[in-house]
């Protein structure tokens, strides 16, 4: 506790070295989550490594295969508004635009947000729906973990001690696919009671591909390939939707808390899924 320091390195190497040199140190990105937890006395880092000056964490790169690489220090606001996203990748900008409020979106970063895996946070489900991968850097190099594997348990991720989120790689979505994020919250800006993130591709009147992830309904975003498959080949009719929704609801493991009961959270999953499908109907007609 006596060695508390804040370091603001300019390179990723220096940041990692600093993390390594001081066990128990934590990375400071926008502060929206970490400082709130420090103020509440929930975390007491020995030292902080501020990432603000690490330029390599900021960039956005368009990949040759249509994918996008987003730096960990990308602010929610940027993801919400300055959209480089195409097709179903837009699930990310929809999710980012519903995080907290404009001021917090101006502070909070992609990396900072996902590093905590708050069950009510908006990015995790969106990243899973987008089939994104998380780029992790550590003393021994870089590794890439699928979003599904990255979120491990309540407030727990695949990050090991001394590792940082460097960024997120969002693969190209199918051409013509639609992204959407449907969030239910008590009031604007609250953590989600439950949310549905999805990417859907239509082929004529039926769904050719779908990827659904449920947020706010368990320790990690809930994604079931089986539920995706239930929609494929259908016209997203209420039967198919409710079957897929029920499957997801049964698999969900939501908390019972002041935001909502676990029963209610399960109950609204199929309903939010159906609503999300209805919400994207205009986009589908336009496509």
């Amino acid at each position, binding site marked *: 506790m006596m060695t508390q320091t804040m370091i603001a390195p300019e390179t990723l190497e220096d940041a990692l070295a600093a993390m390594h040199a001081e066990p128990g140190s934590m990375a400071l990105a926008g502060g929206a989550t970490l400082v709130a937890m420090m103020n509440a006395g929930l975390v007491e880092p020995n030292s902080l490594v501020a990432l603000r000056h690490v330029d390599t964490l900021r960039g956005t790169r368009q990949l040759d295969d249509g994918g996008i690489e987003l730096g960990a220090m990308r602010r929610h606001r940027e993801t919400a508004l300055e959209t480089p996203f195409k097709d179903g990748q837009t699930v990310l900008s929809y999710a980012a635009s519903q995080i907290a409020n404009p001021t917090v979106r*101006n502070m909070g970063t992609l990396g900072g947000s996902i590093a905590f895996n708050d069950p009510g946070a908006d990015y995790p489900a969106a990243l899973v729906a987008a089939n994104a991968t998380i780029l992790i850097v550590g003393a021994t190099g870089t590794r890439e973990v699928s979003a599904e594997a990255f979120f491990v348990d309540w407030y727990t991720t695949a990050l090991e001690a001394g590792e940082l989120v460097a960024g997120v790689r969002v693969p190209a979505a199918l051409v013509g696919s639609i992204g959407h994020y449907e969030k239910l919250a008590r009031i604007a*800006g609250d953590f989600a009671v439950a949310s549905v993130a999805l990417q859907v591709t239509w082929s004529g009147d039926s769904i050719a591909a779908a990827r659904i992830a449920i947020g706010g309904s368990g320790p990690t975003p809930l994604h079931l390939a089986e539920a995706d498959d239930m929609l494929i080949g259908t016209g997203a009719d209420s039967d198919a939707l409710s079957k897929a929704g029920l499957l997801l609801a049964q698999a969900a493991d939501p908390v019972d808390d002041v935001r909502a009961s676990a029963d209610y959270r399960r109950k609204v999953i199929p309903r939010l899924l159906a609503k999300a499908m209805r919400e994207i109907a205009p986009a589908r007609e336009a496509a």
Partner: protein
Amino acid sequence: MTEMVTLRVNGREHPCRAGIATTLLTVLRDQCELPGTKRGCNQGVCGACSVLVGGKPVRACLTLATDCEDREVTTIEGVGTPARPNAVQQALIDTGAVQCGFCTPGMVIAATALLEEHPDADIETIRQGLSSNLCRCSGYRKIVEAVSLAARRTAS
């Protein structure tokens, strides 16, 4: 352990002492003698502590003082004075949108930043922009109308 940091607030240098967990809010209020920035929740929810850092609104309670050393901080004291209020402040004065006033500094910061970005903000844009800030007295309508008035006045 505390260290010395020099903050640039409202165009002036303030040498301050800050520990690892010391927030910008605490330093502004306790060391810079700038109590206009209010502490309402210390969790980043209420918005009463909003200030501009590098011209963008942030929560001073979620910003660490030591993370602000090379950034320009603007507080409510820096956006206008009683004698020379800015456009948002003047509109709030003229429309009677202020009640207890505790949320007002944060509201002014949020609205000032909003109009900087969207000088022609309509009601819906203003409602979105001010959703960062809680007010328990007004019911918001008059505040939204005041900011809309400020936008129209600035435009004309």
